[in-house]
């Protein structure tokens, strides 16, 4: 009954992993691969997709123009939201579906403040930074409302944020007495379009700034460690001195701040607001960006750069589809197919499976035990 002698060399090989396997296990593999595919597709179909030219904008300033610029520009709100959404997901194991409606509120607050209550204002009635600051505070309070329901009343995030999702756009309209204020002062639109003399769209800078802020926060505080600990095991986090409820609340408030910045960008693109259409369905894209970045929607470990990359991929996809004249009504269907494919591929379970030559994933099998 002796076991057959095995080749020792083979053992060493299976213990060491191939480069490909290690690569596919990286969290950013799927969004990066998707990006590469999109780039390749466009390169082959029409290399001019990547052309960047200098055009004069309506004010007669020379500015950069091209599909790539437009992707980077238009993705801004989504990127900023998806960062906040990542933190909320990590700590509470659920998503905030009210971000679109909350962006309407933030935008409405800003317009109300800078227009000073007028319907058609030609000059700003309040310092723009002060208005933005107030909008951030208001937005964080709404975030605190969501966070309190989730953390202290232990309501499912999706259900808790459904309240603001439903009411948010009416609140936004109510803030401006159901008027649609328009801000004509050109300097109001600097943030959403171009700063004078600078050919790169301002939202790109704002987004970079926000990413930088979070990079610093994650490096110089324990935000990452705390939110992950709470999301993975709240009970042991508590026994290590953390306050899980407060940390969940905090992440919802941080998302609130992100929402305000995104809302600000959105209204300063046009200087006006449409309560029911502004940032419509953006919550779905933000959640998808988080998933696409390889983050588990059930919470726990996260990587904000994954979400950032996911957001850009989604915008890239949208722009590509527009370019090929997919009717705007059919667009969501196309997008859905591609996104589902990407999300499924980037799901941790599938990723683990991909890294295995044969056999089953331990995670899945372990689940079946219970």
């Amino acid at each position, binding site marked *: *009954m002796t*076991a*057959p002698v*095995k080749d020792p060399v083979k*053992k060493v090989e*299976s*213990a060491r*992993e191939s480069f490909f396997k290690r690569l596919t296990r990286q969290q950013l593999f799927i969004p990066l691969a998707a990006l590469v595919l999109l780039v390749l597709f466009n390169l082959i179909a029409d290399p001019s997709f990547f052309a960047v030219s200098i055009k004069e904008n309506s004010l007669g300033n020379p500015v950069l123009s091209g599909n790539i610029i437009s992707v980077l520009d238009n993705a801004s709100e989504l990127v900023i939201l998806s960062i906040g959404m990542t933190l909320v997901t990590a700590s509470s194991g659920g998503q905030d579906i009210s971000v679109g409606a909350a962006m309407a509120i933030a935008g409405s607050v800003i317009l109300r403040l800078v227009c000073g209550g007028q319907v058609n204002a030609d000059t700003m009635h309040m310092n723009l930074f002060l208005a933005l600051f107030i909008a951030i505070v208001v937005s964080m309070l709404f975030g605190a409302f969501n966070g309190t329901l989730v953390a202290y009343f232990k309501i499912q995030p999706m259900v808790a944020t459904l309240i603001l999702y439903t009411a948010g756009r009416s609140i936004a309209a109510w803030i401006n007495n159901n008027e649609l204020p328009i801000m004509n002062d050109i300097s109001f639109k600097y943030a959403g379009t171009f700063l004078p003399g600078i050919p790169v769209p301002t939202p790109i800078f704002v987004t970079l700034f926000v990413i930088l802020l979070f990079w610093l926060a994650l*490096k*110089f*505080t*324990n*935000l990452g*460690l*705390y939110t*992950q*600990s709470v999301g*993975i*095991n709240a*009970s*042991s*986090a*508590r*026994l*290590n*001195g*953390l*306050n899980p409820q407060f940390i969940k609340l905090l992440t919802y408030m941080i998302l609130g701040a992100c929402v305000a910045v995104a809302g600000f960008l959105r209204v300063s693109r046009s200087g006006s607001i449409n309560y029911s259409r502004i940032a419509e369905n953006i919550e779905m894209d933000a959640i998808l960006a988080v998933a696409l970045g390889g983050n588990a929607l059930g919470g*726990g*470990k996260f990587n904000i750069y994954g979400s950032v990359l996911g957001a850009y991929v989604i915008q890239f996809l949208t722009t590509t589809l527009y370019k090929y004249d997919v009717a705007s009504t059919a667009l969501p269907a196309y997008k859905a197919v591609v996104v589902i494919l990407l999300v499924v591929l980037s799901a941790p379970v599938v990723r683990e499976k991909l890294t*295995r030559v*044969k*056999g*089953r994933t*331990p995670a899945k*099998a*372990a689940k*079946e*035990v*219970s």
Partner: protein
Amino acid sequence: MQEGVVLEMRGICKYFPGVRALQNVDFVLREGEIHALMGENGAGKSTLIKCLTGVYAKDEGDIYMAGQEKAVTIRSPQDAQNAGISTVYQEITLCPNLTVAENLYIGRSKGFGTSWKRMNAGAKKILTSLGIPASPKQQLGTCSIAVQQMVAIARAVDMECKVLILDEPTSSLDEQEVEKLFGLMRDLKAKGVGIIFVTHFLDQVYEVCDRITVLRDGQLVGEYVIEDLPRVQLVSKMLGKELDEMADIKSEVGAAADASGEVVLEAQGLCSNAGIKPFDFSVRKGEVNGFTGLLGSGRSECVRAIFGADHVTGGTVKVEGKPAHIRKPLDAMKKGIGYLPEDRKGDGIVGELSVRENIILALQVMKGFFRPFTRAQAEAFADEYIKLLEIKTASADTPIKSLSGGNQQKVILARWLLTDPKYLILDEPTRGIDIGTKIEIQKLVLKLAAEGKSVTFISSEIDEMLRTCSRLIVMRDRKTVGELTGEDLTQAKIMATIAGGEAQ
């Protein structure tokens, strides 16, 4: 396959990234035998079992079962169950938010269908026959770890099986429950069931087992008939070196166990919402004391109240003579108190985080939100304790959940040692820890005391308490019923006090 063999594994190999968990391991289980699978923490016992039951896919090797010519393929725990292999895993794998009855019957093909009434009645019968103090309709999560473990055992035993696997089933059970389990095992053995039994309790091995297979570092050391392998030899086979487990470590470490130091912590009339009666407690500098009592006697709840882990509803606490308001764990931590919880999986580890993050967590929280350790500092801490406690892990970056049970426990211990507490509460610190390390931990506790720290030690093993503690507080029915010191610290005296013959 030979006559009378129910299960045979040949040349099993299993690799994890950076770890060779099993290398060419053979294992033979015969009909009607109880076969101990022994080895240090991380030796590969649980992995071997998981390869057998389809939780992990083995990388190499074959499994044969009685009555089948060819090697069997087991792809999932469900397959294993259908092949007549019934398993209790080391970490409880039941569903805490289902009822006890549901947990007993979930996922079993020959069940009661959807008749809840019959299911609950069936569950009731099983529970009473095993004397498990739980009702069928109770949510499993609300039961103590011991009860959960008994439910897991009941579930496995109740299934018709040819092979029964028990991976450290007795780690949270007290003596009576262990006896009950052994009774069950002997019954099954008489019926011809082959039983694989993993444990770190040597006494238990010699009480029920017929044969021993020893693993070390993922390799097979050998298979022995129990009579041929005396205890001393078994230990040296497991550890690969000699170890005198009976040595008097108290005198060896030279702990100054006389409790004349100043009082470090003093509690009066402390009680919590976990249902303990108000109790008084104090611990002196350099003292090792312990709470003892049967399971459910409230010993864990007492220390949880001290640490602020449960909601404190009354009483006063003084730390070094000054009144302290400990309302939450962080308050206690700031006063220099550390607490290693009883439920490793539920309250201890942060599963997906790395060993390094798990080690620094408590100290990091004390240091504050805005002052994270640099990567280099964190790495230095982790490496220091991985070395000190000989934690077996591929690297400090490995997620803690992929460590063996005993090694996870060491990581949590490291976490609290790192905070350098004045007063350390250890609730079952040696659960699931191998015999070599167990003695190391006992020595460590005495060494801490010798350095002037205070320790409260809780263990289900009275032996272990006697070896380390100089004062024992005995609990019964969530009340303190006695305190033993000096001459009174004997097994008999403790048992008598627990039983209530000689209260006060």
